[in-house]
């Protein structure tokens, strides 16, 4: 396949994943703001940090208000990661790689783009926010569903999935990193138990709130939450899960092309670390340092894939 096409697919699915994750983050943040009005500014601020658009936000706004953050994350054309911009970019990439997609996948992306442009035509009021966020998640599922249901399991599929999981691993790591202090043993020991609302937000941001409780039967500890999000391969948004998927897609490409490239070695290293490390080791080396290192390695893998498979020439 064309290098351009592989790159177009990779980024199209990164954009789609990011827009879905922004919706999830907003959902968690919104819930938090509703349940504890007093410190809600801090929550909105941490949303901006997690999405990596804090500076861009303050170029446009003097102060943080819920309405400004919501609008910035969902609709603002000057925010490169706003949901609207992500959808525009995803659809534009889908047009670029139209010949690699089934008609169903293309139509799903095109319809999502139309539906979200419609839903986000005007500023979203708080009252409408849950419905709009639900719509974003639904559209995202629609695209994913058509991808799984109609695409050949070949390199086209692999490059698409690689985009999804490189982006998702990055997003989950960022969510944790922004909130890592909540999970530090010292914080927990001060109050005796974790701040309920804080860890709930973390779990909700990755749609793992119910599954965590189901698995842990009500026991909540910093170590077990970090373990769940970083190392548990059953959770589809954990770092370990993402790397299991990345490895499997890269392995397929390696076999198919009969060539081991730098990106294969890099991904094996990261996957191996996630397999062998225990959560105690992570805390011992410092949760923040671990996550920082992971985000860096993950980004490096992304650009290595771009080079190895000649996305740009």
């Amino acid at each position, binding site marked *: *396949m*064309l290098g351009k096409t592989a790159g177009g697919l990779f980024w199209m699915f990164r954009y789609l994943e990011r827009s879905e994750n922004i919706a999830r983050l907003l959902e968690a943040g919104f819930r938090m703001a509703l349940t504890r009005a007093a410190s809600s500014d801090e929550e909105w601020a941490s949303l901006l940090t997690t999405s990596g658009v804090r500076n861009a936000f303050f170029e446009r706004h003097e102060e943080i208000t819920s309405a400004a953050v919501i609008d910035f994350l969902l609709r603002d054309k000057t925010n490169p990661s706003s949901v609207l911009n992500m959808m525009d970019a995803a659809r534009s990439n889908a047009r670029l790689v139209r*010949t690699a997609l089934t*008609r169903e996948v293309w*139509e799903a992306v*095109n319809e999502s783009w139309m539906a979200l442009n419609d839903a986000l035509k005007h500023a979203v009021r708080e009252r409408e926010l849950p419905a709009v966020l639900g719509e974003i998640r639904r559209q995202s599922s629609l695209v994913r569903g058509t991808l799984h249901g109609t695409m050949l399991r070949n390199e086209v599929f692999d490059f698409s999935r690689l985009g999804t999981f490189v982006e998702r691993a990055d997003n989950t790591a960022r969510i944790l990193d922004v909130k890592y202090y909540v999970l530090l043993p010292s914080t927990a020991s001060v109050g005796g138990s974790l701040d309920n609302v804080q860890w709930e937000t973390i779990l909700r941001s990755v749609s793992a709130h119910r599954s965590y409780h189901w698995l842990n039967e009500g026991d909540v500890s910093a170590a077990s939450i970090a373990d769940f999000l970083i190392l548990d391969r059953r959770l589809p948004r954990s770092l370990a899960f993402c790397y299991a998927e990345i490895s499997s897609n890269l392995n397929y490409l390696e076999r198919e*092309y009969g060539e081991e490239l730098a990106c294969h070695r890099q991904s094996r290293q990261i996957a191996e670390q996630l397999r062998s490390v225990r959560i105690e080791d992570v805390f011992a080396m410092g949760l923040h340092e671990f996550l920082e290192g992971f985000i860096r390695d993950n980004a490096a893998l992304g650009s290595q894939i771009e080079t190895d498979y*000649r996305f740009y020439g």
Partner: protein
Amino acid sequence: MCMSTEANFFNEMLQSQGGTREPYQAYAQWLDGEDPKQLLKKLTEAESFFRRTGITFNVYGQSEATERLIPFDIIPRIISAREWSSLSRGIEQRVRAINAFLHDIYHRQEIIRAGRIPADLIAHNEAFEPRMIGFTPPGGVYTHIVGTDLVCTGEGEFYVLEDNARTPSGVSYMLENRETMLQMFPELFTRNRVRRVSDYPDRLRQSLSACAPPACEGKPVIAVLTPGIYNSAYYEHSYLADQMGAELVEGHDLRVHEGRVAMRTTRGFKPIDVLYRRVDDNYLDPLSFEPSSTLGIPGIMDVYRAGGITIANAPGTGIADDKAIYSYIPDIVEFYTGEKPILNNVPTYRCSEPDSLAFVLDHLDELVVKEVHGSGGYGMLVGPAASKRELAKFRQKLKARPGAYIAQPTLALSTVPIMTKQGLAPRHVDLRPYVLVSGQGIHIVPGGLTRVALKKGSLVVNSSQGGGTKDTWVLED
């Protein structure tokens, strides 16, 4: 259902003395049993279908976000088997002559020696491509794909407006229009025996494969070259590549590599055998033509001349559909086929000739004036519809550069009804059938693109000027 008919124009569905023309009879019967309100609803349905599938075109000179739909009308344009057989014989004859003409023009120029066309018509023509001199493209085919523009003025009276021998567009609309009709009105296709058009992409693939260059080993690798996603016809480029199972490439995906034109794939460079290019000659090779072009591939012309790739359509085919050449086509047909032309040419005044210019200036309000190198209905004057100011402005243009224009009488274009809120209403139409040429022969798709001027009384059918499209049926014998 009732409809007003304008007596001056040939209505392809309804006869002026009442009654329905033969090819439309089964359809009209069905239409009588339908509720007009429901049909109007279908029109909205069709529009949302087109939007969902992304069948849009970009409008030049507007922001990238501007994607428009070409309006679709649900009343089909129906052509009988008899009409079609004479039409297609005429088209085939014309296309065969055009290919012979192109070969001659780039080789011995017998037609000029025989005095049938003036030498400077070729020598001073921008569309003439010196790099094609003495070179014969693989299979001897110059125009792999032709879209002949036709209009009808009466029972069995067809005229060729343009030959479109460069990169004719619109075939994706022909295919999607049929797809839409099949989805919305499946029952119509059991009542009428309509010849299918859906095998066009397969045939295009076969036809292009049959023109593979000498360097091709094994199954030919085909790619469609597009200027990119902001081009007005990008949807069509991606659609055709997808339907043919070919790669869709842009200039920067390609380079000359080991004597072949190759595309950058995830596994390295892979040679292309046949390039169906949808960029103009000028942008094809920055080394040979437009140096600033980023749409093309430096060095492709050398590879081409060395037999390393087939370019479809061949560079320099524009000399055959140039508006200045148009008026000579009947001579060209006779010269190369030894037969009388089956299809009519529209009488054409060459403004480069002083007598003709004087006549045109005198009769400007009755004539259609076209730029010799223009396309898409831009820079064109429709005399009877123009204001006094427009006429005066055009008169100046004509006097300043007479050689840049030709003029033709306004033809009484036939009408086919469209569906409006007020019921059926007649609108002017043209027809663009698509022709595939390979060394193995000429294939004409039974059907084509019917463009319709949606504005009452308008004669301009171009999509860039508010035209729409219709499904075009050719009935089985």
